[in-house]
């Protein structure tokens, strides 16, 4: 599995805020996502109804997950494919390696896949003498830089054009050093040429899967570049990596979810390539892989069923939540410290690797609620972050001062008259102290809290005072 730096979230965030390159990249990228999604949603009047449909399809599937997985496997087998059931990341890595070894693979091309990042497939293949080559443009440069994705659909979100040019010059040393990258498309063209060689060399192609379809035994990938299709079409063996919650019952179910996916992700009506793979090459076919394997991974998902985090398994990995998150927008994806950043990561990461190391993540939220409001399958992300905070508290993982302060607050909160008087006084004092400042960067006795946050200076009366005033007016 990928190393985890989530325990150092505060330091990571501080570093990110002070990184001019990252801040420039975040500034460039943020607006485009929001604008394009808003436009795509505005152009489809049924979008809100489709969100309910998407949620219902996923809920129905999760409630009958065992049935649909078995139905799916039967169809894969009928189409000449194999399903490899893997409980853990270890099992999945071993299954992938075994398939590659049987194919005598030396070079493996890869389509973009977050489950591959989660499982650490690349490192495992490399350790066993097999060369994995990432073919998504963003993943390709990250592999050159030995970095991990900072965003689940735009992996090189944190890089600027200068970074691309510098890395290509540094690493593509067979090309003339004085070549000119006049336009972004020159960078793209160079990557296209370099990767075309790899597509043709590869013995095995590994992709992820956006959906698995029980009705037909198909795996679905969604891309814009076409790299995923080259990856799964040209080599002799295709491996699709998928976690168990990717299954949906029918083509109609997948179709409804696909109407939500591209619009929520990139603001496209439909991605350029949406491809359904069902088994291996048929006898008379002129192209396509001779073997088709699905590595079906649990790796902690089944533990989420029946808990307050079950709804997280509806996630279709569109990234709308992180695109709209003020915290992600300020610090980028790497600061979160593991594979999945942003609000969906703040819920999923503790579920998969434990709250002990990841307690900071569900706390890294302003609870503005934007993530839930844009989620195509209506996952209540803020509510689940609260559940994680509660679990953290129950298990005594929160720091002692925070716990004693919470206890102090609770003592006051149980005594309304006293509480109102105290908040009124505090409100007035802070308002006076911080007049004209906007926010406190630090406060006496609350240094632990303000070290990672600013406290807005109160304006006007307390909530209760304003509520009472409003009631009187009516």
């Amino acid at each position: 599995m990928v190393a985890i730096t989530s325990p150092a979230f505060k330091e990571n965030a501080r570093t990110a805020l002070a990184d001019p390159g990252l801040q420039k990249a975040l500034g460039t990228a943020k607006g485009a996502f929001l604008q394009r999604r808003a436009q795509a949603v505005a152009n489809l009047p049924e979008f809100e109804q489709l969100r309910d449909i998407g949620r219902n399809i996923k809920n129905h599937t999760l409630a009958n997950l065992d049935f649909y997985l078995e139905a799916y496997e039967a169809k894969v087998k009928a189409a000449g494919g194999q399903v490899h059931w893997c409980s853990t990341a270890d099992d999945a890595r071993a299954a992938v390696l075994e398939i590659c070894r049987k194919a005598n693979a030396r070079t493996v091309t890869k389509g973009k896949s977050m489950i591959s990042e989660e499982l650490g497939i690349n490192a495992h293949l490399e350790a066993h003498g097999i060369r994995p080559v990432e073919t998504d443009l963003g993943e390709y440069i990250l592999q050159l830089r030995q970095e991990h994705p900072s965003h689940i659909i735009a992996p090189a979100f944190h890089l600027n054009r200068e970074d691309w040019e510098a890395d290509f010059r540094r690493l593509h040393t067979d090309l003339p050093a004085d070549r000119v990258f006049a336009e972004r498309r020159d960078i793209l063209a160079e990557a296209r040429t370099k990767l075309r060689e790899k597509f043709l060399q590869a013995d095995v192609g590994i992709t992820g899967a956006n959906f698995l379809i029980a009705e037909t035994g198909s795996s679905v990938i969604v891309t814009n570049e076409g790299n995923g299709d080259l990856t799964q079409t040209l080599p002799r063996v295709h491996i699709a990596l998928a976690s168990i919650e990717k299954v949906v019952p029918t083509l109609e179910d997948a179709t409804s979810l696909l109407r939500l996916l591209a619009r929520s992700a990139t603001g496209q009506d439909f991605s350029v390539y949406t491809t359904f793979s069902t088994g291996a090459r048929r006898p008379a076919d002129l192209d396509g892989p001779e073997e088709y394997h699905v590595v079906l991974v649990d790796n902690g998902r089944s533990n989420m069923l029946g808990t307050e985090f079950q709804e997280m398994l509806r996630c279709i990995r569109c990234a709308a939540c992180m695109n709209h998150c003020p915290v992600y927008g300020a610090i980028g994806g790497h600061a979160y410290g593991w594979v999945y950043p942003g609000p969906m990561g703040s819920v999923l990461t503790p579920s998969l690797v434990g709250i002990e190391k990841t307690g900071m993540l569900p706390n890294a939220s302003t609870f503005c609620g934007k993530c839930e409001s844009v989620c195509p399958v209506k996952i209540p992300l803020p509510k689940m972050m609260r559940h994680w905070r509660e679990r953290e508290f129950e298990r005594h993982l929160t720091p002692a001062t925070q716990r004693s302060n919470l206890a102090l607050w609770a003592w006051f909160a149980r005594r309304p008259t006293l509480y109102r008087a105290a908040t009124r006084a505090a409100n007035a004092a802070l308002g006076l102290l911080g007049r004209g400042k906007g926010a406190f960067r630090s406060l006496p006795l609350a240094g632990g809290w303000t070290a990672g946050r600013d406290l807005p200076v109160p304006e006007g009366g307390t909530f209760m005072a304003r509520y009472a005033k409003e009631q009187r007016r009516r």
Partner: protein
Amino acid sequence: MTKEAILGAIRRGLKRGPLPADQQAMLGGRLATHPRHLIPARSRLPRPDQVALFIRNVEKEFGTVERVPNAEAVPAAIADYLAAQNLPPRFPMAPHPELTAIPWSERPLLEIEQRRAEATDQVSLQHGYAGIAETGTLMLPSAPERPTTLNLLVETEMVVLRASRIVGAYEEAWDRLRAESKDERSGGFMPRNIMFVTGPSRSADIEQTLELGAHGPRRLHIILIDDDPAALPMGDATAPPPVAVPGGPAAPGD
């Protein structure tokens, strides 16, 4: 066994054992009847407007479309297109009966081979199974007569599509496939691969700015044969949607 372990863990989470037979039968029925969900109204149009919507959506996604009256007009349309784009008149073609029936001998300068695509090919000619008006999407199921590599390895992909094969929504295309296709291996209707293609290949991985021609074709050109009298243009449906510009700011792709 791992499969049993995973299924067991799922059932423990769901706080139940294996589903009783009657519930399994109900879910099996849902798979067999594959009920449709809400289909957006945008593609429910009279035939001429449906075809117009398809064309508009292809163009919105940077593809191009040329309408020709019949199959006899295809060779000239292709020869002219290749000449205009300064492309060689040499290409692999899907060995589909509808394509081989086209009177290619009228344009003897076109060098056509019926085969899959290789990495050295610049241009390909594919057979379009269906077009989906909702988003301007081509449906290209793999078959011996429709190789997948024709969609991927070239810089310019040309697709011959009959107007009678344009449907409104994806669901209608699925139903056509279910009715028309038979897969010998699985006994079902799904071929090895189905690509849904909406415009030419692109990436926005560099600074979230859209550039065309990532790993797949840089150009997608559709030759639309007007074989459906009911679909011939009468008047335009609605104003065209706003068009993004390559090189301008855009949301990223994958």
